[in-house]
């Protein structure tokens, strides 16, 4: 389980931007900055070796022609070249060691809900919009592509998931070629999940909200709200100085930075002013209370999912052992490697509610026992 934790830490550095290499054949290659950096790299600028993703070509095209080109785009991607040419891949079975892929959702906001005991709590709404698997790299290849030897050996492969289909006119050729294998339109956002080989997914598979079930626990990772360069009072909650009584220019400053004697230096990791927010954060062990299949919305515990409204959130199965126990003991495995509509014969209901969650269309909660 320690491996899980370190893996999640590593994910911070390996953002999806790394995937966009100029060479389309290197889709699965993970580029890592080898430069030795003291502390964390706090910059908003993409590294110089990223190939440009977005292009803005001002085409001198009449509106009618532009409409026609749009039509061609839709036609082209309507029936994508079947990724099933080599047949559907074999589906693995779930084991306690299995790590499935996640989805890339969008945060919609926070809404209160009530349990059947009448307790009020906040839930965060996450919408899974138009997700597709873009690429799968088996563990052997993936461990080699890193440029360094991963400590987990060849345990995990990688799945690239994309969200929000766009017209190809927004992007450069090298970016659009990433999607040739999956046969889907180019996506606005890509992300990568590490998966065990038994949870391998074929490129081109759509992912939707049914990937999870009500009552499952998930982890959410996203970028927090950016505040820019901030002082210690706002960034670390320090007290600052007094407002008056002879205080000069020290109202919002930090106090002492370090001691004397043997410790006569500013220690590493001292909390100081700097860039605040806009930083990857993972919130673990959030319960799924409710699923709306019509709008593809997950209701997840709490208001601590990082980021503002409409930010991207990576949602995947939790790595907390005590939250996975239920799956292991009760033999209640999640759909592997993801949910396929063929699995269910009856039509999917519009809503799934947790057993403990209050349904608004049911009667009010009453403690009066009728005798």
């Amino acid at each position: 389980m320690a491996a899980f934790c370190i893996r999640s830490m590593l994910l911070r550095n390996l953002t999806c931007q790394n995937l966009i290499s100029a060479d389309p054949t290197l889709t699965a290659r993970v580029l890592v900055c080898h430069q030795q950096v003291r502390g964390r790299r706090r910059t908003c600028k993409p590294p110089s070796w990223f190939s440009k993703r977005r292009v803005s070509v001002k085409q001198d095209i009449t509106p009618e022609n532009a409409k026609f080109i749009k039509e061609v785009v839709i036609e082209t991607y309507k029936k994508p070249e079947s990724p099933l040419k080599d047949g559907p891949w074999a589906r693995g079975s779930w084991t306690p060691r299995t790590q499935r892929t996640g989805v890339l959702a969008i945060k919609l906001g926070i809404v209160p809900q009530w349990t059947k005991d009448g307790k009020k709590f906040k839930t965060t709404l996450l919408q899974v919009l138009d997700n597709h698997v873009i690429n799968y790299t088996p563990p052997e290849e993936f461990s080699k592509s890193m440029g360094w030897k991963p400590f987990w050996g060849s345990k995990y492969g990688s799945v690239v998931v994309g969200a929000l289909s766009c017209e190809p006119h927004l992007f450069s050729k090298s970016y659009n070629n990433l999607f040739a294998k999956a046969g889907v339109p180019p996506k606005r956002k890509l992300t990568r999940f590490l998966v065990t080989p038994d949870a391998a997914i074929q490129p081109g598979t759509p992912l939707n909200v049914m990937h999870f079930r009500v009552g499952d626990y998930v982890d959410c990772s996203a970028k927090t709200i950016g505040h820019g360069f901030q002082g210690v009072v706002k960034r670390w909650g320090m007290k600052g100085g007094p407002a008056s009584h002879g205080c000069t220019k020290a109202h919002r400053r930090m106090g002492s930075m370090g001691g004397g004697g043997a410790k006569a230096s500013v220690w590493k990791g001292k909390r100081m002013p700097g860039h605040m927010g806009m930083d990857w954060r993972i919130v673990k062990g959030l319960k799924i209370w409710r699923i709306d299949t019509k709008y593809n919305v997950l209701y997840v515990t709490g208001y601590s999912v990082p980021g503002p409204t409409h930010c991207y959130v990576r949602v995947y199965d939790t790595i907390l052992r005590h939250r996975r126990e239920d799956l292991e003991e009760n033999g209640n495995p999640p759909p592997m490697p993801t949910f396929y509509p063929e699995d269910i014969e009856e039509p999917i209901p519009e809503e799934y509610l947790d057993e403990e969650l209050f349904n608004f269309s049911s009667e009010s909660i009453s403690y009066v026992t009728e005798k």
Partner: protein
Amino acid sequence: MNMFRFPVRNTPRKLKKSFGVGSGPAERIKKLQMLVTALIRNERLEAKESYCLETRGYAEQLIQIAIRNGDRHAETMEKADYWLLEKDLVHKLFKVLVPRYQNYTTAFTDYHFLPKKVPGSGVQMGILELKGNPWPPVVPRQRNQKYLLTNVLISTAKEEYRMEKKISPDLKNGTHDKLNQLDNT
């Protein structure tokens, strides 16, 4: 969600003090009053970018409430009286601008960037104008791009594409429906 017809910032800009007015929220409104008045009179303004874009919001809102409520509405009249420092313009607002913008579905104003005289220095200037003004147009006329090489190529390709699609019409229907829906939204 956003019912504004033009790009709007979440927070208002702070306008630097200039001649006649100082800084601070009260003086900012004073400056904006002057600018809105000037815009309604001249129908075209040349000012700093931030001034233009701030003025734009207020002028649009003023015209919008005038269209919605008419000149019999006390609150609207009060607003018009407050924002138009020269009172002959109150009549212009209700008699000229309201009929002009009655059926508009887009913004009532246009903003254009002016080039900087010296690159890399100076403030970005811009032009704010009311649509449908009598002055000569700032942007040169829109050219007919139909006969450009690329457009000729695409439009002939379109005919050919349509001809091919006629042979298999089942494919064609789906896209058209989709496109129509797209337009409706």
